[in-house]
């Protein structure tokens, strides 16, 4: 079955580097016009995957289809994709305009059309005034825009980006996240972006594939991945996550009671529909720091779960405070409290209180 509306259709792709599997039976489908990110730590296989889509590496097994067409034995210069390199790879002996004109010239686009397409592409990245400069005369951010324009001018089916923002400083990186997203919308082109930077992936992408050790662990919208991570790895890799291991004691309709050897008290959870959990099943609970509430009051709100804790550390970071609270000997949780009430300043290390959260906010994973 080939999905005709898909820009990229990857089926059980395998790439071996020596004896290790750099890419381990990866299957992905990227619809037309989507901003898709491959997110993972270094060595996760995301760059290998990107290079196979670009054609620089040959898969050992599996197929890649671009626009429904098999890419088997198609060299990079015949593929309808263009790659924005991590180092930009601008030709140092050519001007900005010559760099951008390179692709269309190679494709045999008529001379007059090349000029107008180059102008259009440079307009899109707001660099029209610097056509005659050499790459060495541009700033890092400008070089990156040239790299983008040089790829987009070819009107590729898919634009591949390899760690596009990694060489930029923090502020420029945030600006470019927004910029990339709007360029993608204007170009109406499928973007596949490799990054190890989770915030970058969440901000820019329509969908993200989290990769680890050559496998795709989870594919979903940024919200899916953050709100309902399918594994502890995904939860830890995307944002900060508090974890607690325990065993299910009783099941009571849609809810269940979990007890953890690591802390005192019973914890109520909502049973996830897709997991077969019975009494006695080991589970891991995941709760995001900003979903937690600290309270010294004895009584919680309805639907809330509460655990006794003590304050270990207070970290002030301007817009919010991070509390490290201890629930048990080996369990320290992160709690993020917005700095919106001056009255909250009272907590100091050593204070005893309770950590509370909405029962539905805890993500349950079976071991």
């Amino acid at each position: 079955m080939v999905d005709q509306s898909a820009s990229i259709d990857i089926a059980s792709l395998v790439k071996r580097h020596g004896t290790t599997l750099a890419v381990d039976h990866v299957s992905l489908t990227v619809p037309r016009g989507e901003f898709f990110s491959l997110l993972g730590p270094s060595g996760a296989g995301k760059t290998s995957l990107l290079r196979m889509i670009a054609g620089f590496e040959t898969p050992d097994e599996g197929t890649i289809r671009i626009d429904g067409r098999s890419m088997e034995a198609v060299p990079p210069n015949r593929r309808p994709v263009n790659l924005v390199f991590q180092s930009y790879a601008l030709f140092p002996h050519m001007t900005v305009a010559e760099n951008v004109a390179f692709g269309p010239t190679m494709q045999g686009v008529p001379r007059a059309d090349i000029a107008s397409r180059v102008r259009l592409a440079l307009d899109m990245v707001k660099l029209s005034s610097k056509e005659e400069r050499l790459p060495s005369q541009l700033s890092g951010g400008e070089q990156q825009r040239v790299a983008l324009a040089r790829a987009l001018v070819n009107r590729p089916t898919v634009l591949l980006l390899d760690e596009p923002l990694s060489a930029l400083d923090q502020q420029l990186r945030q600006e470019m996240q927004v910029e990339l997203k709007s360029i993608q919308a204007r170009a109406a082109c499928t973007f596949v972006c490799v990054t190890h930077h989770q915030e970058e992936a969440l901000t820019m992408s329509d969908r993200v594939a989290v990769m680890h050790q050559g496998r795709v662990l989870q594919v979903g919208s940024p919200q899916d991945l953050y709100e309902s991570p399918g594994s502890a790895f995904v939860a830890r890799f995307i944002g900060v996550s508090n974890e607690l291991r325990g065993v299910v004691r009783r099941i009571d309709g849609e809810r269940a009671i979990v007890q953890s050897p690591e802390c005192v008290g019973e914890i109520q959870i909502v049973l996830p529909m897709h997991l077969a959990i019975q009494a006695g099943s080991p589970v891991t609970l995941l709760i995001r720091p900003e979903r937690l509430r600290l309270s010294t009051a004895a009584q919680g709100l309805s639907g809330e779960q509460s655990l006794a804790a003590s304050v270990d550390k207070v970290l002030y970071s301007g817009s919010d405070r991070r509390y490290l609270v201890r629930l048990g000997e080996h369990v320290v949780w992160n709690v993020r409290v917005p700095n919106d009430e001056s009255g909250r300043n009272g907590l100091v290390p050593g204070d005893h209180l309770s950590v509370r959260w909405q029962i539905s906010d805890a993500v349950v994973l079976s071991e």
Partner: protein
Amino acid sequence: MKSSPPAGRAESSGPVASWWLLGPGLLWMGLLFVVPLSLVLVISFAERGTYGGIVWSLSLTNYLDLLHPLYAHILGQSILLAAVTTMLCLIMGFPLAYYIARAAPGRQGMLLLLVMIPFWTNFLVRTYAWMFILRTEGLLNTLLLKLGVIAAPIELLYSNTAVVIGLVYGYLPFMVLPLFVALEQVDRTLVEAAWDLYATRWVILRRIIVPLARPGIMAGCLLVFIPSLGAFLTPDLLGGARSMMVGNLIQHEFLVARDWPLGAAISCLLMLFVMGMMRWLLHAAKPVSRQEDAS
């Protein structure tokens, strides 16, 4: 307060110290290069005495003598042989240098060592070895006869072909080394980028690799062309009497004909030609240095 005076002194003595550093080198070059060269220049305007001595005068006779077709022929032949040698070295050296530049770092050192191994033996000895190979009853002819490729031995030694073979053999490493340095610095991702941007292998070579390796190509060509042009030993041993190059002519004038002034004039002309050519080459290389000029 205490730290400022030493800093000031270091600053003022800096340039003075650097002049002293030039001293030994300047002395050596002055005595053994500039003075003899000036002598050659002066002698080139003198005249030959009846028995081979130098008659001091200021005349252009020697330079006018050089207009004789015989000399023009030898100079032209030398330029042609040097140019053919340079071209052959470039054609053979470029793929070799590219291969070494793209080899794994461990292999790279070994391959470069192999390129330089000929230098371990004296050049004269190696040229004699070529005489044994190229002779009518030599290694090459014997082999070809035994294999039945040829019916009668080919006359290779004492020809322009033999001279070019010897020169290419001798100077190929001088082409490979600067090319290797230049090609190794060409970023591999640029090649990938061009490939991604629909370029064929040939276009990548022509529009990306060659322009970026241009300083190395220029350096390699100069390092082969200039010594080939003035070569003396190789044409003497492999070219014999039939293929004379400028170097042999100069040697002949100084040592056989005992016409020092004419020999000096030929030397000066040769130097003038090489200097003019280098200027032209550096000018031709300008587009590459555009980067520095514009910034």
